[in-house]
């Protein structure tokens, strides 16, 4: 995981909550932050893509997530995985971002764009090249209900039910229910374009 040789001697909590005033402590915190970001940047970028389509806002969200990870580092407990910790912070930012947006305008515009695209593009999902499939997939995911978007983006990242439950503060069973519904809805959305 994140335990490189240099960092193994100190726990992240001790590193972050410890004597941050010392130059050494700051250096270790910074190294740890860079390590976490390097390891999980790909996951973060994908998660963001499932919630926001505009590249400028995606970048802004990435910066916000990075800032919140930096601020939350002292609270990290080693019993939780770094991936879970980072994904939870990202989800909090993304949920708040979605909730803050003027939903009526955004949803209408999003749906309109989606149906316009669906009307012109009738190629089956499997027949598209990978870039087109990726665009269609992320576009379809952004049409899902928020609770479905949350579980599907995490599941696509290869997270276990338990990890998803920890990140979203839900029971494992509820994660299962939501994921099944999300998969059905996603299937329908991808089929709309196939038809």
């Amino acid at each position, binding site marked *: 995981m994140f335990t490189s040789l240099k960092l193994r001697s100190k726990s992240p909590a001790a590193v972050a909550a410890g004597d941050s005033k010392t130059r050494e402590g700051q250096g270790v915190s*910074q190294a740890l*932050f*860079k390590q976490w*970001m*390097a390891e999980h*940047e*790909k996951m973060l*970028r*994908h998660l963001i*893509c499932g919630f926001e389509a505009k590249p400028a806002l995606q970048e802004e969200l*990435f*910066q916000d997530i*990075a*800032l*919140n*990870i*930096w*601020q*939350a580092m002292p*609270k*990290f407990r080693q019993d939780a995985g770094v991936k879970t910790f980072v994904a*939870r*912070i990202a*989800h*909090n*930012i993304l*949920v*708040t971002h*979605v*909730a*803050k*947006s*003027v*939903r009526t305008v955004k949803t209408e515009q999003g749906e309109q764009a989606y149906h316009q695209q669906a009307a012109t593009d009738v190629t089956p*999902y*499997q027949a598209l090249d*990978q870039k087109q*499939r*990726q665009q269609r*997939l*992320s576009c379809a995911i952004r049409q899902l209900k*928020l*609770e479905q978007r*949350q579980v599907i983006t995490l*599941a*696509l*990242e*290869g997270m276990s039910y338990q990890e998803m439950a920890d990140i*979203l*503060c839900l029971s*494992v*069973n509820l994660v*299962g*229910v939501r*994921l*099944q519904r999300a*998969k*059905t809805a*996603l*299937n329908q959305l991808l089929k709309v374009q196939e038809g």
Partner: protein
Amino acid sequence: MTQQSPLNEQSPLDDSWLAISQDWQEQPYEKANLDTLLRKTRRRTWWAKVSLVANILATAGMLLALLVGLYRGDREMPHLVALAVLFVASVVYVYIEVKIRRTAWQLNDAGPDHALKAAISGGESSLQYARLMKWSSYFLVIPLNWYGYAMMEYRENITWKTFVFINGMLLVMYVGTHIYQKKRERELSSLRQFSENN
């Protein structure tokens, strides 16, 4: 896990799930420069702290200037009154600012529900701050114009331009706050609506 468990249910997407996951995980992205990211992150944290500390220091400075002025008795009365009014207003601003920042910093590692509550609470504090700023611009019109007028007795360089400057500043403060307030109101209404529906 029982057979009835939702975890064991089949979904129409299960057959193609592996291919879809692969598409998802192979999405291209532009890698961030981690040194720049770290620098920007640290700078943002630093500026947030600096602005808060600067506000606290400015408030303390006003109190100190007021006390020194009262003790030495060499300051004009309008000056002391203006300092007292601004000090009281500043204490209230700092209190609300601390409240807003504390709420914002609570947002990070709790569950999504808590993050949403924190965002609503932060939005409410921001609105409170905006309303206070607006009321301040109403209430400060009379004391600040009075201050300018009263200081004319002591300073020759106070002219009509001073009053244009004072009232212009209040107008800019009002308009800026109004725009900020409208934006926060939209966000808060959206957050509340979202929270009720989920």
